[in-house]
């Protein structure tokens, strides 16, 4: 019980309750206010600290808003051409199998131009962790339609809203990858508030731990706010994730220990 007297902050003036993860640099992030990327970076950095893997982790940054991830994460990071992050991660992991390798990709990068690389890395069961940031738009180039844009959602390239008959409905990547035999772990979480951040951290911990144990391919999709191109405030964006995205992209574990879980 936190009475005023034994409140943690009172016990000692010097007690550290919260601080910047060691794996996160002190560089101000270029992300917009309320953007999910910064939260996912933080969670990833915390996990590198907690799992003690920063010094043997090699990441692959995407072409997308997170292209500069190497300025923020204090692990080795490679660039990849747009969409090719899973192939670059494959090359790194095969060359250095005892390192922890992740790719970090947006929905355009992973599910449009890089869909082939995504599916085949998963199908080979590469022992890598793929972090998929689904914000329903191409943030970096101005909020255009992505493979995950919701039906009716307005973007500069679907100004009347996404029409599923001519543009196709949104692609559910977790469900798609779950049809393959080799993935070890697939989960979708939603950054729709503090609970969502904790869920993302738990999912990423499961994924990275599985990789450390050489279990195989792990995939975490994070439904992530892009206030700028949702054209909503940061708070409204969280609501959009919860109320508009989650019904289309249900959260949960799709693959656990190599076994598909059917809802």
């Amino acid at each position: 019980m936190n009475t005023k007297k034994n409140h943690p902050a009172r016990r000692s003036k010097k007690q550290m309750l919260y601080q910047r993860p060691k794996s996160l640099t002190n560089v101000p992030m270029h992300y917009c206010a309320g953007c999910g990327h910064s939260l996912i970076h933080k969670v990833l950095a915390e996990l590198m600290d907690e799992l003690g893997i920063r010094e043997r982790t090699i990441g692959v940054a995407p072409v997308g808003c997170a292209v500069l991830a190497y300025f923020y994460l204090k692990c080795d990071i490679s660039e990849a051409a747009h969409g090719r992050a899973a192939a670059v991660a494959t090359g790194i992991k095969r060359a250095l199998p005892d390192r922890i390798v992740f790719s970090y990709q947006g929905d355009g990068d992973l599910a449009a131009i890089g869909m082939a690389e995504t599916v085949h890395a998963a199908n080979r069961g590469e022992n890598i962790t793929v972090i998929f940031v689904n914000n329903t738009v191409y943030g970096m180039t101005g909020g255009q339609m992505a493979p995950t844009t919701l039906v009716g959602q307005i973007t500069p390239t679907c100004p009347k809203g996404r029409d599923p008959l001519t543009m196709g409905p949104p692609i559910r990547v977790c469900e798609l990858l779950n049809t393959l035999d080799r993935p070890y772990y697939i989960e979708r979480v939603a950054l729709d508030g503090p609970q969502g951040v904790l869920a993302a951290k738990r999912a990423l911990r499961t994924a990275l731990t599985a990789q450390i144990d050489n279990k195989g391919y792990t995939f975490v999709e994070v439904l992530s706010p892009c206030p700028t191109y949702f054209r909503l405030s940061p708070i409204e964006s969280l609501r959009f994730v919860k109320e508009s995205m989650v019904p289309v992209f249900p959260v949960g574990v799709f693959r656990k220990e190599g076994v598909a879980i059917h809802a």
Partner: protein
Amino acid sequence: MAQQKPISPRVLMMGNEAVGEGAIRAGCQCYFGYPITPQNELTAYMAKHMLEHGRVFIQSESELAAISMVFGAAAAGARAMTSSSSPGISLKQEGISYLAGARLPAVIVNVQRGGPGLGGIDPSQCDYFQAVKGGGHGDYHCIVLAPASVQDMHDMTVEAFRLADRYRTPVMVLADGRLGQMMEPITLYAAPPPPVPAKPWALTGATKREARNIRSLFMAEGGLEKHNIILQEVYQQIKRTEPRSEEILTENCDYAIAAWGTCARIAKEVIQKARAQGLRAGLFRPITLWPFPSESLLALAGKVKALLVVEMNAGQMLEDVQLAVKDRVPVHFSGYPGGRVPTTSNMLSALTLMAQQFRGL
């Protein structure tokens, strides 16, 4: 005791396999490829032998993926390679541009076939421009080596790895379907692999050091310009040090054929035949297509009456020859586009025809 392998054995090998064996002997640690004729035997050779040597082989989902896997492996400090033929090399241009931009060493083998488009599967030299003028987007060059025999296919693959590491740049071996498919006895490379230089940029995990990154993106003011200047300095250094060519019978020579790869190989026979007919013929063969051996060619231009460029394309190296000789000598051209390989008599008649125009001059 492990049985000692015989040193430098002579073996009968197909060009594509000779490339594969060269790569293995050069210490190639990772090979990624996608099937395409006429280089399939190379991918199959690597599938068998890389795995036997405990090294990495992946049949990728596409050439885009293969070259990106090469990018990843090279970023991690490994000797990495991919191979393909013309349509597949077009797809690899994305990754080659990124390799050049990120200054990563890698080896790319193009066993050319006719184009454009799906073209055909017959041998061709139609990718000269693509190979030597950059190929992908941005201001860059690959070092381009042009083998003319199965022995060259083998040796130049080893050399390509050495050059890639020496200059931190992608190196292309530009062969063709004829060289890939033919069989010849060769002497296998028996020395230790070319030494791997220190790679203080490689991504190996930031153990007791600052984190590193590999990138071609430079967004800060002036950063990209600075990076391009560094690249150009490397290219200038390569241009000063690495141009290579071979000359045969160019002393007391009136008419020289300038040809590379398969055409140079045919020309070797043609100049002998021409000499037997009393025509003082010789051969200039660029071994490096980039950097182009312009100085040696210019020196030769001062000694001959005319040059005949022969290529299995519509005139690509021709332009570099014209630039190099600076109008000092007439340059004629005989081209075979669309997958046709000239015969010795084709080439001999082109040479005699040219010589006739200069008789009495």
